[in-house]
């Protein structure tokens, strides 16, 4: 009897037995929760007369979208509206990332300037912008700045080719004439050759220690071929300038005010975070590195290019991609100023019309989740690639 009890005791207090027990309980609770939600949802949907499934994607959407990158009309399907929204999201994220990077790096480097005034201006920029909610900034640029701009007749203009008014930003369009395709093929070819030059130069440097000016050679190659081919084909590329016709502009590319405001706000806001990332990255390179480089006689620009930037980039890139991801996710605030992005078009209008809440929100969340997981996958690969041997 005594031994039986102690056997039972040692069984009950065994770590791994307890582990299995706890896990079973957790699993059971989660399964119960999911079962509860699923049965409730099924009954609720039955009551509201909603059919589950993705059949609605093939149905005519019957609504129009203010800005589309692909052909779209009210007779297009809900799936088309999904693609339109997705492309609009990617467009605003792409432009936003480009400008956020430029502003962010500039401000980040300014903060490290030895010039007191410049450093303070950069610090003020960061401290002001990152402590004000993004949505407020978007509202400000959209309602207080862009909507308050003059009418097309009194547009703000730059070089007679860029016009800014309350209908949006009008920029020249590039028109590719006949024979311009060959220029593009040549451009791609020279880019590929340049990559080859870089790889070859790196190998040769590793082998012999001799440096090859790969950057200058490939730049000259790409630009040279580009302009020579342009001249040879008789400049088939031209610009179409926007012109004031009646009450609005015709020609050129029209960027709707929602897009301009959203891009502006996203870029300025994210730049304040990128600036901090850049500053942190450069400061993370220890001073000894610069001093060592100086003592072996490297010139200032070479120290920057060969010693500081490569090491700073290893620190900067992971949080930088995180900021890019944040910017992409934040672009969903578009819904608040009616820029037709994925959330507004699909999780807004399409959801309202079809009532397929679960499928639609699932798809929208899926897109963002995919982007996040994909980015972190790339980042993990990057980290593995950039790891210095012998480092933890």
């Amino acid at each position, binding site marked *: 009897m005594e031994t039986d009890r102690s056997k039972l005791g040692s069984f009950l207090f065994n770590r791994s037995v307890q582990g299995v027990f706890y896990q079973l309980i957790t699993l059971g609770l989660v399964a119960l929760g999911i079962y509860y939600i699923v049965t409730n949802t099924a009954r609720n949907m039955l009551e509201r007369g909603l059919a589950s499934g993705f059949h609605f994607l093939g149905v005519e959407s019957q609504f129009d979208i203010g800005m589309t990158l692909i052909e779209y009309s009210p007779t297009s399907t809900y799936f088309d509206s999904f693609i339109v929204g997705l492309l609009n999201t990617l467009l605003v994220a792409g432009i936003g990332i480009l400008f956020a990077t430029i502003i962010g790096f500039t401000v980040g480097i300014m903060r490290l300037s030895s010039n007191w005034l*410049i450093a303070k201006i950069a610090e003020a920029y960061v401290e002001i912008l990152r402590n004000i909610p993004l949505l407020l900034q978007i509202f400000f640029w959209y309602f207080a700045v862009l909507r308050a701009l003059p009418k097309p007749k009194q547009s703000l203009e730059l070089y007679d080719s860029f016009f800014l008014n309350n209908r949006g930003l009008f920029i020249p369009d590039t028109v590719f004439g006949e024979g311009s395709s060959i220029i593009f093929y040549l451009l791609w070819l020279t880019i590929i050759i340049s990559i080859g030059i870089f790889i070859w130069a790196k190998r040769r440097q590793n082998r012999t220690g001799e440096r090859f000016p790969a950057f200058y050679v490939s730049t000259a190659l790409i630009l040279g071929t580009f302009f020579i081919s342009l001249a040879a084909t008789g400049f088939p590329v031209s610009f179409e300038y926007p012109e004031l016709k009646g009450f609005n502009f015709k020609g050129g590319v029209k960027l709707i005010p929602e897009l301009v405001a959203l891009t502006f706000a996203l870029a300025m806001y994210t730049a304040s975070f990128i600036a901090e990332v850049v500053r942190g990255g450069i400061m993370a390179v220890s001073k000894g590195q610069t001093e060592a480089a100086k003592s072996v006689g490297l010139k200032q620009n070479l120290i920057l290019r060969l010693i500081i930037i490569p090491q700073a980039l290893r620190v900067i890139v992971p949080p930088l991609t995180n900021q890019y991801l944040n910017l992409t996710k934040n672009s969903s605030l578009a819904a608040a100023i009616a820029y037709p992005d994925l959330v507004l078009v699909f999780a807004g209008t399409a959801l309202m019309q079809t009532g397929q809440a679960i499928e639609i929100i699932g798809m929208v969340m899926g897109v963002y989740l995919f982007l996040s997981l994909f980015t972190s996958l790339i980042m993990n690969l990057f980290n593995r690639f950039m790891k210095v041997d012998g480092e933890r």
Partner: protein
Amino acid sequence: MSAANKEMGPPVIELGAMGWLRKNLFSNWYNSLLTIFGLYLLYNLIPPLVNWIFLDANFVGSTRDDCTNEGACWIFIQQNIKLIFYGLYPTEELWRINFVYLILLISGVYLLIPNLKHKGWVGAFLLIIFPIICVIMLSGGLGLEAVETRLWGGLFLTLVIAGVGIVLSLPIGVMLALGRRSKLPVVSILCTIFIEIWRGVPLITVLFMASNMFPLFMPEGVNFDKLIRALIGVMFFSAAYLAEVVRGGLQAMPKGQYEASQAVGLTYWRMMALVILPQSLKMVIPAIIGSFIAIFKDTTLVLVIGLFDFLGIIQFVGTNPDWLGFSHEGYVFAAAVFWVFCYAMSWYSQRLEKKLDTGR
């Protein structure tokens, strides 16, 4: 160096105001150029802003006709101040909100003053009794008239959402972080999936989900208030971010701490509660406050599901026909208030970081 060969001039002044100017603003030609450019920028930005906000602005009056339109019309804010701060909360019940603010203020100040006794009790009061007081005072009960949450709004609603989000998400975040680090595979996988899903999607989709999908999940007859649905969304969202912050702290703990506590025979929960969490949470306090700032800024998003928070109400009063065309004033005011809150939090966290750092 070639300078040694030349005849040397007198040494450059390095002390005093001139020396400081020379060293920090005019050390070489491009620095001088940058300084002039910076001064030009400030000259174009600061005086017009100061004129607009203070010098040319109108502060006294009661209608838009009292504004001269040369500078900001702060009368707009002043006339709508009740809406902006309290939303549509009934005027005769406003003392209830102010009473809650007062309790919060007194206990907050008490906690911030160094070297006072019984801080633990005050903290416990804030965490356990104060929320109950809040619920009764704000939404009604015990003889107080009920105030529906659709009347809540303005800065008050922002503080409620941010406060509840912050207070509830921290314990959930800690549990999720512990779960993700757990040796039990099922627990760890479930927590990881949960955290990554919330972190991978924008808050706006979470709020859409809260307002459109939650009603479908609930059994018949159960109908959550819109505010509560939004609160649940914000809470889980920020809990996932906090979980990652806390996990960072857990990972930074030296392994010896775990081994030592196991060696003295502490169970898992005692080890976590008495040894690991107090130390690792202390390590990540700045990052936690950073997340709080993010939550506070993110509360503005609730306006997309139709709640009138601080920004939402400012947007709303701007559409009042009596006050059209004063959106600049509204946005500047909102920005200033948000900025003060966020900057205060980040300033406090920096101070705390310095204070905690000295021990190490």
